[in-house]
């Protein structure tokens, strides 16, 4: 049985989406899938209450905790994070993508530890929230972004012009005088920790900083592949065939991060382009439910599910178990 750990809010949608996929594209596979949320796991009893997808129907069911679980959820609260950690410590349980949200400074530091991936990382500058002018006076262009999570709507790109900055953020492009920068940026600083990154001139469309997101997955041969590319700041996908330089850089970055986070199978990376077409890392995250959305390209969904099946077959073969049923 394949276990899919979902957030309670998405459990129903993911269950339905998986049912549709397995009903149509994976009919011949004799798999049972059970979706469940963290709330419905009893770690002491090693049992779950979830939705069994089998024989074209969804059946609510209490059953034993599957030994292979794919985590499609992000745990936000302290209690949920603690429970997930306990789940990871359950004997003979393999959890794929045990986390889907990462500390971005840590990820950047991982990338900095490799001579090749280092080239795609923007230099981080320590700064004081209450006195950014003194820090910014040393650099031309900058990015402010939250340290945790991958929320791009909070990101601010500042492009130096003679006596101030063009600021690009969720409120689109605007001009700001150097001395007004503190006032402009203060509202963003109200919550959480922030990173200040020194940037070269980055690619914009005049109104927005153009941010790309690539979704990747690792196959059982331990090779990463790109499954979907999108422009984050403008709707619509990008050609799945990226230029070779971008693709090489992305695969290199994700492969390197994977060395430090070995249970990673699904991830996404956000990046921007400099004016000389070098990509620069912005954010890294794990699984995203958008991949199973109803309007998502079916080839993406099929590719994901094939990979899940491959992992399951491989896992049960290694364990000497029968995966059917």
């Amino acid at each position, binding site marked *: 049985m394949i276990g899919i750990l979902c957030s309670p809010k998405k459990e129903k949608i993911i269950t339905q989406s998986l049912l549709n996929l397995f009903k149509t594209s994976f009919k011949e596979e004799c798999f049972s899938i059970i979706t469940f949320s963290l709330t419905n796991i009893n770690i*002491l009893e090693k049992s779950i209450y979830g939705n069994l997808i089998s024989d074209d129907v969804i059946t609510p069911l209490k059953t034993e905790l599957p030994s292979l679980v794919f985590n499609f959820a992000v745990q936000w609260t302290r209690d949920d994070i603690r429970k997930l*950690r306990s789940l*990871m*410590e359950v004997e003979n349980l393999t959890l794929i993508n*045990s*986390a889907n949200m*990462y*500390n971005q*400074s*840590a990820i950047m*530091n*991982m990338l*900095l*530890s490799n001579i090749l991936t280092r080239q795609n990382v923007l230099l981080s500058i320590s700064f004081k929230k209450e006195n950014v002018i003194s820090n910014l006076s040393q650099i031309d262009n900058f990015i402010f972004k939250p340290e945790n999570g991958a929320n791009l709507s909070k990101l601010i790109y500042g492009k130096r012009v003679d006596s101030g900055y063009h600021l690009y953020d969720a409120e689109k492009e605007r001009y700001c005088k150097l001395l007004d920068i503190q006032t402009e940026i203060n509202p963003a600083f109200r919550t959480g920790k922030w990173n200040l990154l020194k940037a070269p001139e980055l690619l914009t469309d005049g109104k927005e900083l153009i941010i790309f997101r690539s979704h990747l997955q690792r196959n059982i041969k331990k090779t990463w592949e790109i499954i979907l590319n999108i422009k984050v700041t403008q709707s619509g996908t990008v050609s799945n065939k990226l230029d070779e330089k971008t693709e090489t850089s992305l695969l290199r970055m994700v492969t390197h991060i994977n*060395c*430090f*986070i*070995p*249970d990673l199978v699904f991830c996404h990376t956000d990046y921007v382009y400099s004016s000389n077409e070098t990509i620069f890392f912005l954010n890294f995250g794990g699984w995203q439910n958008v991949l199973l959305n109803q309007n998502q390209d079916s080839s993406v969904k099929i590719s994901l599910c094939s990979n899940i099946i491959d992992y399951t077959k491989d896992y049960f073969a290694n364990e000497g178990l029968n995966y059917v049923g």
Partner: protein
Amino acid sequence: MWAKIELKKSESEVLYLPSSLAVDSEKVTTIIFGKKTVNIEIEYSDEFVLENVNSFETPGIIGLSEKLKDALLIPTELIYRVKISDCSIFIGPVIGFLLGIHAHRYNPRHMEKYSDRLGIYNKVGGLIYAFSPKSINWDNNTAYGLFYNIVTSAWEYGCFPIPDVIYRRDFHSEPELIEKLVTVTESKLFNSRRLSKFELYDLFSTHKEFLKYLPATELSFDFNQIKKFMDSHPKSILKPIDLSRGRGICVIEKTGAVYKITDYRYKYPIRSFFHDSSSLENYFSINQGFFNKYLIQQYLQLAKIGSSLFDIRVVMQKHENKTWGCTGIECRVSNSNFHLTNISRGGYALTLKEALQQSFKKDYETLPKQIDELCQMFCSHMDTIDGHFAEFGIDVAVDINKRVWFIEANVFPSFKGFKIIDAKTYLSIRYRPLIYALSLTRFKENELKP
């Protein structure tokens, strides 16, 4: 010999040594760093020198070609010990903290809690890094992790050779991986296993001299057994086998036909009364968890300070001469009328002398010696079983009759109390495992004091 590393450009794997080492190293063909061995060429040069007074503070300088640096996976910011022996030159030590399975959590901020251990770095030197067993590449004996950069006083990511010695800091890893590490380090992985409370009880129940320190204990498996146990011990305690720090315990007390249960599994203890055994049976049929990895133990009438219970944590650690010694004792006093003595639950810490004095006022002078004997006996016996141990937090209690009892021993003890009552002892305890780790390498010194 202490040395810093200078990098030189070369297409080969070259080690550059001071000319003064030409005689000592004439047969050397390999360099060994942790579990990495590389064939090398050696070049001698007056460009590299050994200081007359060679020490951590005034190290010599050796050169490595960039290619050799890459092959060895050696961070060049650190200060190393160097030993020449027959055909090999050794650089090190390489000491690892073996973390758990939550690899995504191990970042520089997480590692800050280990930084105070590095206060002894000038006596140890070399590469000290933390890694998860999940991030080991067994094909080339390397591991991805975070090393302590003494120059920046920060933990930095990298890929390194499997260490010479490993200090285990987590007990949730797959046993097979630990076994592999034990093999590859030639058993220099210490705190290699954790025994549950019952395994410890089982192990020591056949130890004639130790038996007197053990409270009556049984594995809890059904209601009838609990009831029978209660007939012999009207006040008993149910404890989870795998948890420590008072988590998950429950106290049962029988007075006449009435049973009182105080359940500490929740944030606030829940008290329940049962007026006959069938209602008690009903309680246990609902709480089946008490028959899964729980033990039932005789409740000890522990000595008190005022109205508060206290227990004693003895930290036993191995010295570099491989003998056990007590490196700290703290007494943890519970909140008034609370069964748990944990500082994390609002208790406070005292020194042993203060606690015994406040509890007994007089005639307690022999107790410290008895406690020491118990702990020495415990550690000596642990050295006879399978595993490599170098650190225990032994929980001991004294009852109202001044009898000393063994409660439990933990290979992953917390020392929070020491941090408050004796910072010097706290740091000394923190340093000790690194000094012991060094003593297991070929870089050991005759005497090191933290």
